[in-house]
């Protein structure tokens, strides 16, 4: 069956590569935050308040053992070097342990929010991030493509006004748009709430009060992401459409006397296909963007969870979140890969040739 179906073969081949990438990503995600020699236990210890050094050490030992961060002797006591520092567990064995646990669906326990499981942290945060980012990115992508295509097709005023605006939009750092919105609409005019995901007088549930307050709080974060996505996407789409408009097949179609609308459809469709990759990338950059939006609007979500975790060297949370991210990005890219293969016969042909 594989031989007969180059597309399927290609998909499987790609899946293989993505899997390799995933494995490397898991390793990188695991090792990167552990590069520094900060001791994450210090963060928990600091919150425990003052104690004498003997009990401090006992306490520390308990945590070190629990998180598997230090080597222990046969009695289960933490091994310490001459200067009193605990001897760290080899990263390799930590990694093996981590992989085993992850495979069983256990992402460990947060250090900073001890004893909250990492899974709970992620599950609490992710709906907000997804609800804010995904529709915004997709809408922005659609709208941006539409604008870009229009600018390319109409040229003239459209192009001369819209295009520089789009360029400008993509040149403004993401957080600036957010800040300006907060400042202008949130504080100066108070048209929209400046912070939070919903009014504190409501509780997340399926009630009119909550939903309308959530929608009201949604507007500014939405705008801050939307504008930038639209800017970026429309620029890309414009070049693509201009390119398509200059191709031989468009010229031929014109000489055949085909209707403008048909020709436009041709170019839009063909220009849209490569833009799908842009969509995957934007979805991949989702969490990075979330970080900023969430800080500026004090919006709940994963970005903030990651930032807090990073600042607090909360290894399990960092690794858990990045694992999740990696999966999202890979799945997004992989889907686009497959989708493009299905939608674009050129790519399908190339895949078939590659399979040879």
């Amino acid at each position, binding site marked *: 069956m594989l031989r007969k179906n180059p597309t399927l073969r290609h998909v499987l081949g790609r899946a293989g*590569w*993505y899997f*390799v*990438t*995933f494995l*490397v*990503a898991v390793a*990188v*995600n695991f090792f*990167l*935050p*552990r*590069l*520094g*020699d*900060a001791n994450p236990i210090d963060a928990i210890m600091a919150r425990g308040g003052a104690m004498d050094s003997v009990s401090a050490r006992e306490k520390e030992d308990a945590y070190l053992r629990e998180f598997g961060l230090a080597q222990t002797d046969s009695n289960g006591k933490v091994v310490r070097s001459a200067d009193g520092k605990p001897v760290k567990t080899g990263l390799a064995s930590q990694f093996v342990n981590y992989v085993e646990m992850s495979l069983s669906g256990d992402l460990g326990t947060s250090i900073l929010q001890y004893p909250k499981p990492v899974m709970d942290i992620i599950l609490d945060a992710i709906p907000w991030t997804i609800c804010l980012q995904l529709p915004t990115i997709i809408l922005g992508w659609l709208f941006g493509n539409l604008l870009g295509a229009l600018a390319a097709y109409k040229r003239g005023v459209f192009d001369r006004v819209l295009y*520089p605006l789009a*360029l*400008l939009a*993509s*040149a*403004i*750092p*993401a*957080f*600036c748009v957010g*800040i*300006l919105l*907060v*400042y202008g609409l949130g*504080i*100066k005019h108070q048209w929209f709430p400046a912070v939070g995901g919903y009014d504190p007088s409501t509780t997340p549930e399926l009630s009119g009060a909550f939903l309308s307050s959530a929608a009201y709080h949604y507007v500014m974060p939405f705008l801050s992401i939307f504008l930038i996505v639209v800017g970026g996407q429309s*620029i890309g789409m414009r*070049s693509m459409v*201009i*390119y398509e408009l*200059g191709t031989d097949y468009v010229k031929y179609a014109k000489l055949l006397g085909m209707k403008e609308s048909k020709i436009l459809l041709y170019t839009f469709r063909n220009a849209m296909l490569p833009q799908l990759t842009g969509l995957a*990338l934007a979805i*991949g*950059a989702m*969490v*990075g963007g979330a*970080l*900023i939006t969430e*800080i500026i609007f004090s919006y709940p979500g994963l970005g903030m969870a*990651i*930032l807090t975790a*990073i*600042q607090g*060297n909360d290894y399990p949370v*960092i690794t858990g979140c*990045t694992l999740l*991210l*990696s999966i999202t*990005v*890979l799945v997004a*890219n992989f889907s686009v890969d497959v989708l493009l293969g299905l939608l674009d016969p050129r790519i399908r042909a190339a895949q078939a040739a590659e399979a040879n």
Partner: protein
Amino acid sequence: MELVKGLFKIPSFLFGLALFLGTLGLAFFGPLLWHIDVVSRVGDPYMAPGAGHWLGTDHLGVDMVSMLITGLRASLYVGFLAGVVATVVGTLIGVYGGYKGGLLDDILTVATNLFLVIPTLIVLILLSSSMEKGRSLTLIALIIGCTTWTWSARAVRAQSASLRARDHVALARINGYSTIEIVLEQILPYLLSYVFMVFILQTATAILTEATISMLGLGPYDSISLGKILNDARTNEALIGGKWWAFIPAMVLVTVIAFSLYVINTAMEGVFNPRLRK
């Protein structure tokens, strides 16, 4: 050559260039025209713009114009350094990978995907927070450069692969050129304008990225950059207090640099990329 001459006939290019040279000029010659002092307190915190201090003061009573010029220099420095690193590394690897194919190419592909998978911003935060010795401007630039080179590499690789099959490459081979010579003499020149555009984009991206991570409070410790100014303004509630001079000018500067670079890039793309010629 005709193309380059043509470039200078394109209004948008000239506009972008003028804008960019303007900011560059401000960074270089600003200190000649304005007494730069980012240490001394010259007045009250958040003094509104006025005669002595055209853009007022920051939360520590330091002259904003001095801060902005210093920050602009830092941002440009980060941008260029990161742009150069990302472009040079990315281009060499991209060109070589595209020309040679094979294992190197596969590794490059995985590396590229890897950087897609681990969002740059996160790598940046992770790396910079695990740097014990503190985050200097140079370190941040290097990190940005090192995490974004794959982007250049990917872009260049595709171009390079398409050149591989060209006859002049085959001709160079039977002229006895070595692989390196082929890459440098037969492939790279074709990509130069492209690489230059990549460099411009990388620089703009680096400037934006630096501003972003500084904004998150993860910027350099010991230097003033535009992002740092913005972060200071935010954390010291310039925003809430309506002290527009503490953040609007810095925002404008960041945006103007990035915007001018984008404009230059698109104008160049229109000229050098035959696909987009009208």
